[in-house]
């Protein structure tokens, strides 16, 4: 490892020990640049909108609503959407309800490991404003301080139909190129990281989990 690891385009990774720092990539993520020809970008957006894979990661009680979507009654696969077991294979992260600080850390890890294009749907009132856990010592009150949200679904808990409607709307938004959450995250990375580190006090992972 003779390569100079500190430059403007790297992250500090100060939560890791000197040995561990050598094990992780410390490059800064870069925003996605759309295709210069509009028709190509539109086509790409159409393709993205029709290839949504949900990460199977339920954070709170709202994620119960994901189960009926997978099975016969609401059957989300008729829209060409299915669940995936790992972040690397998924493009939609549904934040299923309240987010404790401990879970937030795992959410950040998983989200950063997802490959673009990626989108976040925040389900329920808990990620939006704290919901009924607004006074808990352990759950965050505004999810969009920590990760960018593309679509909110209100309710406690929202019905599966509401989630379906949100996914349909997300598709429309992706088609017109409105879902730039992942880019917002990368462009304002320092702001997001500062917020994340304010609540996650034992930050013992790389600053960006490639």
């Amino acid at each position, binding site marked *: 490892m003779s390569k100079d690891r500190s430059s403007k385009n790297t992250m500090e990774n100060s939560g890791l020990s000197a040995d561990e720092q050598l094990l992780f990539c410390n490059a800064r993520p870069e925003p996605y640049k759309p295709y210069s020809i509009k028709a190509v970008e539109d086509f790409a957006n159409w393709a993205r909108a029709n290839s949504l894979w949900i990460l199977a990661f339920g954070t709170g009680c709202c994620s119960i609503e994901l189960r009926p979507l997978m099975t016969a009654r609401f059957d989300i696969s008729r829209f060409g959407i299915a669940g995936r077991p790992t972040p690397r294979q998924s493009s939609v992260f549904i934040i299923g309800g309240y987010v404790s600080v401990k879970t937030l850390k795992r959410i950040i890890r998983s989200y950063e490991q997802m490959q673009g294009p990626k989108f976040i749907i925040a389900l329920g009132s808990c990620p939006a*404003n*704290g919901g009924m856990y*607004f*006074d808990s*010592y352990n759950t965050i*009150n*505004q999810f969009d301080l920590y990760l960018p949200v593309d679509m909110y679904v209100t309710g406690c808990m929202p019905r599966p139909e509401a989630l379906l409607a949100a996914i349909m709307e997300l598709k429309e938004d992706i088609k017109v190129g409105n879902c730039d959450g992942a880019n917002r995250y990368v462009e304002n990375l320092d702001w997001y990281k500062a917020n994340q580190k*304010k*609540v996650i*006090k034992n930050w013992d992972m790389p600053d960006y989990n490639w």
Partner: protein
Amino acid sequence: MNTLLDRLATDFGIYDISDRKPAITTLKVEKQQAERLIRELRDREGYTHLNFITCIDYIEQGIFTLVYMLHNYGDKSTLGVEVDIDRENAEMTSIHTLWAQAWTYQRELREMFGINFPGSPRQEEDFCLEGWDDIPPMRREFNTKTYSTETFGHREGRVSEDPREHMKAQLYPTRGGDN
């Protein structure tokens, strides 16, 4: 049951017996006698199962009450052993030698109430919370609302309604919220 309780009362200085629920009897015992009593109940009286250990914070009296809930599979009776300990420098004898699962409860009590169990394994490690740096959150002097607002912020526009008044107004709008 009663003969057992009478004998224990004199041997272990039990100073209060109550039947708050028909199926559960609770004994109050001094801190110094507690481990000996629990050991006796486990080894001689058939209370071989530890249901749970928990803590009640009586901040007004400056004490924590630890509750050891024991179960007897023979006569299907449940017995609670209650021990009062000081809130300041709270400390209690560890019973992890009696039941290994007591570790877990004791780690939890340490994290949530700040009670020390000297000798109990893995006491220093984080249990549920990661990197907690405030007073233990289950102590009643900890103000969880203040902490939450300071740490996690408050979403502008969020309002709280009194549920009773709100539902009255929703259900009986013509009566001006008065039914």
